[in-house]
């Protein structure tokens, strides 16, 4: 009885504190105060969209499109790698994109990585080996910030997992440098919205003003396989490549999943039948 009485008093006490000191002032502020408003840039924000035809790796039976991954790699090499690293990916991993061991060795040699001069022990640059990881274009974050108007270009290894709906996000962002809708812009400017000098408008970016200038232009690279290098094409290719860098085991994971689930369905079916058999006669008949 004492515990119940104490409980009732404590319960009413907590509720009174919550209602009188938190809820009531909150309601008063809500009614009398200015209505809460989202920041002006919210008017522009867009949800990630998928490229035309979608990604080959999407869905439970998705597969890599190796030609697309190789195209995406050339976009990374010729455009992104000027500012962005790929530190969790090694050159040897490129074999998974369908290159042969010799091709990977030759490809790695076209990159320079920091090394040590074997004669003097001094820091130097040497051609990369397949066992090396992709180098960071900047020696350190200070250099990266100094070269980029104080915005450090992030490493891209995990980018598609580090954003919501990441593959579509990268595609939409790279393909998304557009002029703001004039009507929305006029309304937002009244609330103080602007795109400061040195930033670029992109409705798919977190606060729609992005430090990275547009990178992809019609024909800015030439694909080995002759695919026309349109902006949506390059955007989709780099998004596919970065999906692979973020999770090289993506397809293996889904394929393994089918085997595991098929086995479990079978085993659970057996378990169900033995359960029913063992319980036969113990359960009442339904009336």
């Amino acid at each position, binding site marked *: 009885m004492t*515990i*119940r009485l104490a*409980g*009732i008093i*404590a*319960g*009413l006490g*907590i*509720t009174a*504190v*919550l*209602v009188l*000191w*938190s*809820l009531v*002032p*909150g*309601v008063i502020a*809500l009614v009398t105060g200015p209505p*809460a408003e989202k920041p002006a840039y919210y008017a522009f924000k867009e949800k990630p969209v998928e490229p035309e035809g979608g990604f080959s790796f999407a869905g*439970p039976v998705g597969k890599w499109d190796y030609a697309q991954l190789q195209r995406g790699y050339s976009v990374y090499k010729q455009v992104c790698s000027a500012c962005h690293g790929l*530190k*969790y990916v090694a050159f040897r*991993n490129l074999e998974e994109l369908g290159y042969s061991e010799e091709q990977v060795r030759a490809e790695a040699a076209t990159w320079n990585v920091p090394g040590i001069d074997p004669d003097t022990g001094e820091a130097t640059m040497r051609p990369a080996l397949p066992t090396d990881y992709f180098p960071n274009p900047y020696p350190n974050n200070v250099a990266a910030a100094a070269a980029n108007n104080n915005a450090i270009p*992030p490493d891209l*290894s*995990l980018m598609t*997992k*580090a*954003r*919501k709906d*990441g593959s579509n996000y990268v595609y939409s962002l790279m393909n998304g440098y557009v002029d703001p809708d004039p009507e929305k812009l006029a309304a937002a400017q009244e609330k103080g919205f602007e795109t400061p000098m040195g930033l670029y408008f992109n409705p798919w970016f*977190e606060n729609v003003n992005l430090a990275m200038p547009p990178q992809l232009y019609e024909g800015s690279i030439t694909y080995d396989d002759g695919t026309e290098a349109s902006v949506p094409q390059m955007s989709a290719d780099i998004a596919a490549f970065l999906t692979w860098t*973020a*999770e*090289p*085991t993506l397809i293996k*994971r*889904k394929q*393994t*999943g*089918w085997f*595991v*689930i098929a086995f*479990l*369905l079978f*085993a*659970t079916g057996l*378990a*169900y039948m*033995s*359960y029913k058999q*063992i*319980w*036969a*006669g*113990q*359960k*009442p008949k339904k*009336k």
Partner: protein
Amino acid sequence: MSFAWAKQYEPQSGFTKWIDEKLPLPRLVYNAIGAGYPVPRNLNYMWNFGVLAGFCLVLQIVTGVILAMHYASNTEVAFGQVEHIMRNVNWGWMMRYAHANGASFFFIVIYLHIFRGLYYSSYKAPREMIWLLGVVIFLLMMATAFMGYVLPWGQMSFWGAKVITGLFGAIPFVGEPLQVWLVGGYAPNDSTLNRFFSLHFLLPFVIAGVVILHIWALHIPGSSNPTGVEVKKESDTVPFHPYYTAKDGFGLGVFLIAFTFMVFFLPNFLGHPDNYIEANPLSTPAHIVPEWYFLPFYAILRAFTGDLTIPFTGIVLIQAKLLGVIAMFGSILVWFFLPWLDKSPVRSGHYRPMFKKFFWFGLIPTMIVLTICGGAPAEEPYVLLSQIFTAYYFLHFLVILPIVSQIEVPKPLPFSITEAVLGSDKEPAAQPA
């Protein structure tokens, strides 16, 4: 420790007789989860979750020990080390996804297990000790899960650790030095990561120890059951093996299908993308949210937005942050008092019309709304909703339960489990051969 009609272990061969004399471990297993443990014959599927929780604990320990072989608890390398597991360790991606989703599924199972206990009042005498130990296990699980989430050293790891350890700073007078001592610095750092790794490895074994006590305490009165009528005679029970081993085997299969579906097809669905960004003490994420299983408690923490002041004087008695911390810990501590708050002699919610209404239309929606509010940004209407439902949460356990158990007229109970199952309390018909 058991019912008079429980079958006794009878070693057959010379070897098992020899073992039984020296170390009667087979006898212990036989009496605990074998044919020697008579269990009410009317358990429904809600009684599967105890065994499943035990399975989850083993799963987490096995995957966790393997992950620990490849991990390094140093802030310089921890994030990269996790990527090493994902990319270079054979089947490392599967181990890590199984461990991360295993934590979520452990909590799903535990929440269902707790809701079973709440609905069927499994906490009532003579099973108070089982319930109390269960709440201890739940608290240990929360600590373990929280520290485990810090180990990948992503953005949410770091900022989550900062927010949660910051709660200790709300304690008057000793709060700040206590927080610095617990964290090993002013913000999460290498010392923090090392001690969290050490404790994250240790606590599961502490949990395993309390689980043994939990099961030991269970075997004294035996399992509760959906009618809430205690076992009276042999026809009320069936031996655990083969009846419930078979049923649990089927339950485990269903669980594994759901679990592996998440591991292999949606492994990051329950996680947060920000945790794939390495921890950066200089960049605060837009919304710091804990893992989904902490969201109701996080909502309770944030519901207290105003300091407790003496009106018109401006004297602050208790700061809002401390109120939130007290309420958050209090929201679980009230569970310790449940066996004495709810004095209704009837256990099962089936036979308690008023209790049932408050359970389904009060407590369950409250937990759902609080989960949503905990994951939402601190803006209206979520703040208001979390305040209303936090109030209901405490009223439910502390005010409604004691009063309902006093004034409620329960429905008539069946005479026995046998009657509840078979419609009449006669010996069940002979089994067909």
